[in-house]
């Protein structure tokens, strides 16, 4: 039971508040020098790349096949390094 009322301010009010959302510094995919490319034939769906990806840019399909959110992937290469079956290649970009 809470007796606090969140009430809209009644003057010009700009508070330092935010909400979690993707892209808080923009499309970080542009930071990349290399992009991870997943070889779906080799992938064993162990999800280690998904687990270790710092950015949350390895995504899972319904069948747990993984794919990359290139809009935001910063290209750190962790996914390629942790993949036990070498199913991810880091491919140079632009």
């Amino acid at each position, binding site marked *: 039971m*809470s*007796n*606090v*009322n*969140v*009430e*809209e*301010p*009644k*003057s*010009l*009010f*700009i*508070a*330092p*508040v*935010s*909400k*979690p959302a993707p892209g*808080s510094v923009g499309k970080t995919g542009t930071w990349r020098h290399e992009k991870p490319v997943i070889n779906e034939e080799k992938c064993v769906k162990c999800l280690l790349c998904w687990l270790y990806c710092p950015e949350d840019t390895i995504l899972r399909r319904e069948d747990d096949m993984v794919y990359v959110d290139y809009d935001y992937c910063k290209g750190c290469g962790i996914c390629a390094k942790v993949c036990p079956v070498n199913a991810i290649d880091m491919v140079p970009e632009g």
Partner: protein
Amino acid sequence: MLLTWFQRGDDGMVVKTLTGNKAVAHAVKAARVKVVAAYPITPQTTIVETLADMIEHGEMNAKMIRVESEHSALAATLGAAAAGARSFTATSSHGLLLMHEVVWWTAGARIPVVMSVVTRAIGPPWNIHVDHNDIWDQRDSGWIISIAENNQEVFDLTLQAFRISEDPRVYLPMIVGLDGFILSHTVAPVDIPDQEKIDQWLPPRRQPYVITPESGVVMGNLAADEDYYMMRYSIQTAMVEAKKVISEVDDEYGEVFGRKYGGLVECFHCDGSKYNIVIAGSWSGDAKEAVLKLRDEGYSVGVLRVRYFRPWPDEEIRRLLSTSKGVLFIDRSISFGGKGHLLTEAMTNLAESTNLPAVRGVIAGLGGVDVGADEFYELTKSFIDEVEENGPFYDPLYWHIPQVYRGKYPERLPGYGKFSYERR
């Protein structure tokens, strides 16, 4: 005039004789504060002790966090308030200075909390007595800053602070100042209104946002410089709004509880008086006594007591400067290399004034040096006599040297002689 409200025992009012610090604790309890976080420091300590007593004995339904520093005290107070709980802390002097970073952070977060500042000197050397340098040191931080004259006002202001800071036009934290020892440890009658009446008057807590799993609110991450700038603009807007709110709350409180103080300032015979004292805090009463005596002797003199340092009472001071022949500022603080704080602030209103009054800025009472009604009488009388005799002057840094040192040191420092307007 007898203490009439004491005899009105039937209507639920309770008169207690309380120290200023206990008056704070009773107001905090009456406001149904949920979280108290504080660290002991003289002369604030008995606020914390009393609240701990009330909470431990079930007189007050709150949680007390006995933090390990003042820095933590305000951080915990802010944390609780951000979660949605009405929260309170209190400190003094060095504690307030240690807390200073969080003072700014709290105002920037726009989360209303209330803090008592029991004014005290800053060392070295160690000194636990009254001084206003600690409280005025917070003036730029975005807090509403008030200061009381007596224990009754300590109670009333503390209670009002919750109402003012939680007003959706304001949403800023608020400091209630009370003078160390002079109020904090002095017992005087305090009328505590009936709790039911207080509950009716003080609405449940309101705040602009809460940080909860459901709200998803993130407070304080990086913002564009332009957004930062506009947030600062918004605090200033809230300060302007706060002037209205303070005055409304003062009126309302007066209607409901029978005590009205005048809003940002208290005008004690200041309207229409040729000469006026500008002063803040507990010694204002001594200045009023001096003024009463001078008025008996035929002097046209009054007191403008600054109740709120932030927002600064621009309009009231402008009016005072415009209508006074001379204004005597009494500061219990000094901005080294600058001047007293009340004088410094008031001089910013001079450009808006239609008149150029004679001005003297007195620095007195630092570190608890006692200045009583007799001395205010002498200071005021000699100021008026000097103006009447020699014409207006500007004398911003007049040191009211303590009795034991008088005559051994100059009252005006080199470079700060009296500046006569005629010479200009």
